[in-house]
């Protein structure tokens, strides 16, 4: 299944909490139901994006890892 990504956040090389902060800021610029893709290298972001998704209600649609890069796809509430 190919997902239609509206916007991407490149948080590679950034440490906690900037991947979340940048994601939250980017989320404001897309409409409800649209998808946001986040790339990160912080291993802590795995747990953090799950928690953030639960706190905010934005759905964590997909997560994967390739090499040292984590990829998260989130749908705006």
């Amino acid at each position, binding site marked *: 299944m190919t997902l239609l990504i509206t916007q991407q956040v490149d948080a590679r090389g950034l440490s906690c*909490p*900037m991947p*979340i*902060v940048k994601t*939250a*800021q980017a989320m404001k610029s897309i409409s409800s139901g649209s998808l946001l893709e986040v790339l990160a290298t*912080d291993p802590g972001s795995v747990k953090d994006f799950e928690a953030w998704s*639960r706190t905010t209600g934005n759905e964590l649609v997909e997560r994967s890892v390739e090499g*040292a890069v984590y990829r998260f796809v989130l749908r705006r509430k």
Partner: protein
Amino acid sequence: MTTPTLETPFVTPLDPIAIAISDVEGLPEWTPAPADDGQTKTKELVIVNWSGELDRVWPVLILSSTAAASGVRCRVFVTFWGLLPFVKDHKRIVGENWMQRMLTLMQRPGIDHLKLSKMNFLGMGPWMMGTLRKRYGVASPRELLEAATAMGVEFIPCQMTMDMFGLKREDLIDEMGEPAGAATAIEIMTEADASLFI
């Protein structure tokens, strides 16, 4: 509850600890958010920022900016030594009498001049912390403060400390809210879902 399946194993070849954990526990699972019933009240966090030290102000800024990013209303009551990092950059010595001015002579105000509570070693500690911070892509207190204020974190200066330190409203950064006192701190702390004194 179903766990979404992953297309690729959720471990990185560069992370032996994650591999070891996944060998023992299998793929990490996560619990999705409960369905929104539309009745949920916005969560609130209140932090009292008492210290002007790097190793305390930093977590205050990390937690407050993350709270705002998570849709949690966050207010920070800024008191005592905690006020000095919120003085404007170009203010070097502030205060009305020699004792107040002596305070800021000994502890340079501003968000870029925080000292460590331990291992300060005349600035060697903060310098090393800054070097490590850059190497590991950690945001500086200044970047976090800018993110926090941009996302709506409210910083409330303590009026009593301002009087005692001789700080005027215009000495503090423009993003600070209206000065208030202990009763305001108590009110917002008891109403919040969580409150922290850091």
